[in-house]
């Protein structure tokens, strides 16, 4: 009988204890897996959302993150300058406002009013078609459901353009499609049209301005960045990676710190659990181990048996922990996403292959460390004294 089947039989011999160990490792492994998904999840999800918008560079008027600083007052001129660069494939002006949306007796006062001017539209079509004129609009699913509208219906928008004093004009838009807008918050009405359409709704306020320019490079992001910096040194450009990096340096580090603390606690718990189980198990069969040694089993072999038992407990528990962890992550993600003002498509728990590798490596380390003490017990077992004590006992 080879070592692994032998270790398996030793585990099966004490089913309750082995099941306890395996379930414990599965629970700890699931938490570990979740913490690994959480530690980078928000950053990865944010990066994925940015990438899905179809741009790799954002150009703003000032240092702060796009949408947080001063607006691009002459977006039209900046757009023309950057669009003419050979390293740039396309430039789209992006401007957002809030608006009141009404239809019949239904009203939404804090709706997203997104406007773009450029060839690439940062939303995904769900139904209908994309906008082709300044009086057309695509809306998110919540708006479609809230107002009971379909492509072809009309919605009235009153835009709040830069907090101007006078009441905004009420402008009708023909809804031509239903879309998913990145960074859209759940249960928030929203629609997108052209910048000209938004300017019409704003009555000319902030005409020619934009929050930022979304730039798609011709393939070489670094070259496009350098070209933009040379052409418009008064503006600031950020790649998606830089943007994610800034977020990582900010509030998102909390998740990594929390994950690190929880990983340490859960791994310590697993370590103690397996060490205790194996030590009790080994102590109960010291006589057998001494007998095996007397029969000629080498020290290395009996030590390896203990290690294999540890590896089996951790291995089986670790495999069970993955589906368990995934289910737990899905549930926790749903709970965390209920926080207000979060984009609907943002996730806290995001799978990445590296998480699996780290999960496996940490569990392997646990199997080794947990087995150290019981392995030492077996390795240092005095054969003759143990056999004598077993008879006396």
């Amino acid at each position, binding site marked *: *009988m080879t070592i692994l089947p032998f270790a398996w039989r030793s585990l*099966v011999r004490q089913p309750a204890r082995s099941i306890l160990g395996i379930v414990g490792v599965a629970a700890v492994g699931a938490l570990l897996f979740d913490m690994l998904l959480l530690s980078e999840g928000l950053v990865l999800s944010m990066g994925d959302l940015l990438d899905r918008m179809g741009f790799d560079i954002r150009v703003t008027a000032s240092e702060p993150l796009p949408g947080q600083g001063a607006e691009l007052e002459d977006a039209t001129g900046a757009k023309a300058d950057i669009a003419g660069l050979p390293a740039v494939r396309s430039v789209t002006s992006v401007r957002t406002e809030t608006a009141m949306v009404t239809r019949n007796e239904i009203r939404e006062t804090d709706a997203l009013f997104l406007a773009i001017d450029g060839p690439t539209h940062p939303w995904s079509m769900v139904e209908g078609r994309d906008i082709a004129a300044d009086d057309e609009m695509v809306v998110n699913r919540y708006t479609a459901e809230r107002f009971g509208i379909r492509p072809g219906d009309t919605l009235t928008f009153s835009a709040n353009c830069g907090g101007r004093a006078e009441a905004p004009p009420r402008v009708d838009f023909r809804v031509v499609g239903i879309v998913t807008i990145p960074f859209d918050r759940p249960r928030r009405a929203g629609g997108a049209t052209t910048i000209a359409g938004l300017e019409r709704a704003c009555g000319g306020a902030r005409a020619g301005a934009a929050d930022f320019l979304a730039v798609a490079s011709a393939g070489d992001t670094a070259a496009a960045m350098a070209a933009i910096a040379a052409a418009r040194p008064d503006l600031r450009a950020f790649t998606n990676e830089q943007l994610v990096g800034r977020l990582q340096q900010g509030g998102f580090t909390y998740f990594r710190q929390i994950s690190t603390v929880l990983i340490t606690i859960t791994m310590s718990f697993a370590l103690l659990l397996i060490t205790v189980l194996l030590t009790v198990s080994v102590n109960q069969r010291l006589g057998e181990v001494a007998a095996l040694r007397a*029969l000629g089993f*080498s020290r290395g072999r009996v030590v390896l048996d203990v290690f294999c038992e540890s590896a089996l407990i951790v291995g089986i528990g670790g495999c069970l922990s993955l589906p368990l962890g995934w289910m737990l992550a899905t549930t926790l993600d749903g709970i965390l996403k209920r926080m207000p003002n979060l984009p609907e498509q943002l996730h806290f728990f995001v799978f990445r292959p590296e998480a699996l590798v780290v999960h496996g490596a940490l569990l392997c380390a646990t199997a080794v460390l947990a087995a150290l003490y019981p392995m030492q017990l077996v390795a240092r077992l005095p*054969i003759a004294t143990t*056999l*004598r004590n077993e*008879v006396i006992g």
Partner: protein
Amino acid sequence: MNAPMPIVSATNVSRAFQMPAGPVVAVRDLTLTIAAGEHTAIRGPSGCGKSTLLHMLGCVDTPTSGSLMFDGRDVAALGDRARSLLRLRHIGFVFQRFFLLPMLTAAENVELPQAEAGVPRVERLRRSLELLDYVGLSARAGHRPSQLSGGEMQRVAIARALANRPRLVLADEPTGELDEATGEQVAALLDRVNADGTALVIVTHDPAVASRARRILTMKDGRIERESAA
């Protein structure tokens, strides 16, 4: 006629144990040779050093002084791995408490030392069944120790001790946990093992078991007090 070749020779061996109250000498300045094919019984009161001597003869313990040679090799000079190999290939142990592994069948228990010795699977399966047949338990090959009686477990343990065809079998109170009739059967089986050419050393309290040996050593206070031949 040539004298039988010695398997294990102890010359002036002593074994002391460090205890909190001071060292306790279990075996004192003892000289003994076990030759091939011998049948020796070691008797004596509890604590006289019988088991300690047996453990030294079986290379699971080393003397604190004196010389112990197994097959001409100085046991004290061998490392742990070499002594394990020596026990695996040349010595069989039979314990008072059997020490069969409860999660393995009788056949698997017999197979275990062979697997450790690297015997191919087919051969060790054949040998295990052959040995179980030898000890009269071929019908119990698939039974676990918990399904066997005490006498049957000791017979499986004897089969396990013979698994790698040892030259020397050491039995420490092999009938100590058995009733008289079952002990008699086990003793008879050990006689047969010896008759088939394996040297046998039995530590026993039981005069009936000891009287089966051709050589009886009586120990007292760590020394051989008397040696008699049957």
